[in-house]
């Protein structure tokens, strides 16, 4: 990525709360038009990082640049050129849809010439063109969240920070939401997303996996699954998953039930397979269908955590 | 009902109270603070009230009147012979709180056996003091009347306002025992009113109602710790009243404690009922304050005499439980009243407590609506 294309850059970024290290010397770079995912469980440091990048929280140490602006010294300017959607929607429940849009138009000082156009766009995006007078409180989750996104980018910022934007939202709405994000990225916007939902991370171009304040891996979903995962994941299809699990547990494996199959991570699939068949046979269970499957991001994550 | 579950709730509540410094302070410090502030700061007694006398009669009798006033200790005559014109200036500047004008012909009227009048101008900006001052003045003039014409049955000067009187003219004696009732109400208002609402707000109630725990067990379990706190506060308040403020407890301590327990039960249940109805802490505590503390303070008769109130308000006081508690407390403290005298009021308190608890029990639903 050439220097011109780097829109977000962070070096040794750290944030401490008392004795608790929320963000521990992280470094990353995000380019223009890229969808960058920040993946990790609750409490790992995602929200804290995003808040620092948005100028809402001062870092304890380290450096960061958003759109070329210094997060330590130019936090106010940064706020003007980014869009930020927080974890719990930032909309006012007791205002109507239109009133919320008007409010944010004002907050972001969208010039009058553009305001009407942007309002129309936001309403259309959320599917609320004919319902602008509806009370925000009554909107279903998925719609609210599209509206919140719309309000966050009324001023067409080049960089977008989304903090757990699809938390608890149904899969269809989630997909629609991501289609919007794709559209924006194609328009050249940089999108920085945090999520704890491993499968959602698959929508991103690149990911950083964060755990306990540290970045434990970075790369595209594909590379992560290939290179960060030294082990194989096997799927063992059986008729009685619970008994099979007991047998394999006893044999030293760590199987997890997935419906009617078992998944397990092993050092080497080729070596493990016969051992698995043996264990099942010893327990008097019928033979199983064993195949290697692609690791999920969760497998990758667990593997990385256990390794560190 | 399973006692084990009741105690489980009580134990949990106690652990939480102990771990929260704010509620501990509220529970134990606040009552003491209130007691000391009201006990010491509110003095309803007057001594050395700055007085000016405009003696237009300039007779021996009028001078005697002035000196009697002065001798009573309540009035400090800063100027015994002020000009009528200067009275206003004295009152305005606060140099005097009361200006007494003895008209020309005062002694003549008395000699002739006619009613003699004096004019008293009071600094009404402090209504309490003014009222008291007038009361004392009335009493003083009564005594003077009696002295100069013992044969008269009607007093020479007709008191037009009442005096808040007690035998020793020591207001502490009747304020502080009543104060205890107010303090107990504060505990209920602030502590119990939030306990149920807090669990709804924090999400722990949802988990709780999915268990076999019964409503009655929950309510009693929650009452127990606050009851203990209230009772301790009660003991401390009584001790302070007797040993620090020197108010004599003429009646039985045991009876006092029994009555307190009954009152506490009622007022704590009221706090819990508020918590059940409002379901959210902030309005709960405010609402509870309005329902328990304010009536206890204003309408129980602890400081503001009920009989002085407009009739409509007097009727309202009948449903203020603190009113009965105050009556009983004063009775036990000041008159040494025994069970026989206070029984009807005590019964009312008991009924109130039981009724409120019953309502709380019914109102609380182990359901999310």
């Amino acid at each position, binding site marked *: 990525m050439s220097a011109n294309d780097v829109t977000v850059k962070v070096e040794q970024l750290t944030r401490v709360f008392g004795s608790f290290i929320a963000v521990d010397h992280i470094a990353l770079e995000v380019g223009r038009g890229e969808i960058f995912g920040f993946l990790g*469980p609750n409490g790992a440091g995602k929200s804290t990082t995003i808040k620092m990048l948005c100028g809402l929280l001062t870092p304890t140490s380290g450096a960061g640049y958003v759109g070329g602006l210094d997060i330590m010294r130019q936090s106010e300017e940064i706020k003007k050129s980014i869009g930020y959607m927080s974890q719990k929607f930032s909309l006012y429940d007791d205002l109507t849809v239109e009133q919320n849009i008007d409010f944010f138009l004002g907050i972001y000082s969208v010039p009058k010439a553009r305001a009407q156009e942007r309002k129309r766009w936001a309403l259309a995006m959320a599917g609320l063109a004919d319902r602008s007078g509806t009370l925000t409180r009554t909107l279903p989750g998925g719609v609210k969240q599209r509206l919140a996104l719309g309000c966050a980018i009324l001023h067409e910022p080049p960089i977008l920070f989304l903090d757990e934007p699809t938390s608890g*939202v149904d899969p269809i709405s989630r997909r629609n939401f991501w289609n919007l994000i794709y559209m924006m990225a194609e328009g050249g916007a940089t999108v920085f997303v945090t999520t*704890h939902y491993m499968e959602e991370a698959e929508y991103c171009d690149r990911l950083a996996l964060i755990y306990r304040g540290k970045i434990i891996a970075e790369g*595209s979903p594909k590379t992560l699954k290939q290179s960060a995962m030294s082990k194989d994941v096997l799927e063992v299809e059986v008729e009685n998953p619970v008994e099979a699990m007991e047998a394999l547990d006893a044999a030293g494996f760590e199987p997890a039930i997935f419906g009617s199959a078992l998944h397990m991570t092993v050092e080497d699939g080729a070596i493990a397979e016969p051992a698995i068949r043996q264990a099942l046979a010893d327990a008097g269970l019928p033979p199983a269908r064993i195949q290697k499957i692609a690791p999920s991001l969760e497998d990758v994550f667990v593997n990385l955590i256990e390794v560190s | 009902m399973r006692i084990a*579950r009741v105690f489980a709730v009580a134990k949990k509540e106690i652990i939480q109270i102990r771990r929260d410094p704010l509620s501990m302070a509220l529970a134990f410090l606040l009552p003491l603070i209130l007691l000391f502030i009201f006990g010491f700061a509110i003095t309803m007694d007057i001594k050395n009230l700055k007085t000016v006398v405009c003696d237009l009669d300039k007779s021996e009798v009028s001078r005697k009147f002035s000196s009697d006033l002065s001798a009573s200790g309540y009035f400090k005559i800063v100027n015994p012979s002020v000009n009528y014109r200067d009275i206003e200036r004295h009152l305005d500047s606060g140099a005097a709180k009361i200006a007494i004008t003895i008209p020309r012909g005062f002694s003549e009227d008395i000699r002739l056996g006619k009613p003699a009048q004096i004019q008293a101008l009071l600094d009404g900006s402090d209504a309490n003091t003014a009222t008291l001052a007038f009361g004392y003045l009335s009493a003083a003039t009564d005594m003077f009347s009696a002295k100069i014409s013992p044969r008269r049955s009607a007093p020479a000067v007709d008191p037009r306002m009442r005096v808040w009187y007690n035998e020793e003219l020591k207001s502490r004696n009747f304020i502080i025992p009543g104060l205890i009732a107010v303090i107990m109400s504060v505990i209920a208002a602030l502590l119990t009113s939030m306990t149920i609402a807090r669990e709804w707000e924090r999400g722990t109630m949802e988990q709780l109602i999915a268990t076999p725990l019964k409503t009655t067990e929950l309510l009693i379990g929650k009452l127990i710790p606050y009851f203990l706190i209230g009772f301790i506060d009660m003991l401390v308040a009584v001790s302070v009243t007797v040993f620090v403020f020197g108010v004599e407890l003429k009646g039985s301590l045991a009876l006092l404690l029994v009555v307190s327990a009954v009152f506490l039960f009622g007022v704590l249940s009221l706090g819990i009922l508020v918590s059940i109805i409002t379901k959210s802490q902030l309005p709960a505590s405010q609402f509870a304050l309005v329902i328990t503390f304010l009536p206890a303070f204003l309408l129980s008769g602890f400081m503001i005499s009920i009989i002085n109130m407009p009739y409509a308000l007097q009727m309202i006081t009948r449903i203020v439980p603190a009113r009965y508690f105050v009556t009983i407390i004063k009775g036990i403290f000041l008159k040494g009243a025994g069970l026989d005298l206070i029984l009807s009021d005590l019964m009312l308190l008991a009924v109130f407590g039981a009724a409120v608890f019953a309502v709380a029990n019914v109102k609380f639903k182990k359901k999310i609506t």
Partner: protein
Amino acid sequence: MGEAESEIETRSLVKHFGVVRALDGLDLKIPRGELFGLVGPDGAGKTTALRILSGIMDPTSGEAYMAGVSVTDDPEAVKDKIGYMSQRFGLYEDLTVMENILFYADLYEVARTERPARIERLLGFSNLTPFKDRLAGALSGGMKQKLGLACALIHTPRILLLDEPTNGVDPVSRRDFWRILYDLLKGGVTILITTPYLDEAERCGRVGLLNEGKLIVVDTPKNIKNSLGAPMVEITTHSARAGERLIRGKPGVLRVTAYGDRLHVALESMDRLTEMLAVMKANNLPVDGAREITPSLEDMFISLVERK
């Protein structure tokens, strides 16, 4: 009104909140010992179902039976047989782990002689033993959920109702959690779990898809995934989004979704694949690979919902 045969059963369960119909005739039958996943759009449905089943909410109409007892008629009768975990953390943050467990042990009147062994096992299982004297508020999200589960299990219930128990939890804790659930299944416990995550639903014995208050499908994950009735192909390409736009609407294409660097395409038949690849090549979209896959539950859910 006949006897309920299943361990968990609902009949035409309806719940309205004003105009919102959270449940609109739910008919559920879960046999003893099953691990059932209820998935669906966020909103009232799933949580409402669980609340009604645990006796803490009244339905608008309909019946619900737990272990043969009508929970709508007599909720108190079942409460000692069920363990319920609310979506929001429901324990006392100002009490320690041990104090919380003991409190619940008291509420369920667990015999004192039973307690030490049981608590030790529960804590050990959840890796909470070193934290037993820590205030619950000081635990990480994952540990909190495990504590919640421990308190729901202290009285060894027959039925477990878990409302989105692994939301935002770190992957390692999530695995611990599921291991505990599998162990319970061995003991014959019936588990009803709700989740917004379809990948988690894959672990269940059967899955019910709840949409607009009704179940639109109830079956094993495998059967659901195989019910598309059309082959699905995964095409790996850098330009997934462009590819999606290109392919969508082309004859023979039933559905296409972009996931990061992959396209999932539902085709009329496998013959169409060569056509698709040719189209992509003609438009200069590089294809790294293409293979037939089983649709994911998410693919299925969306297809089922959109079909209705």
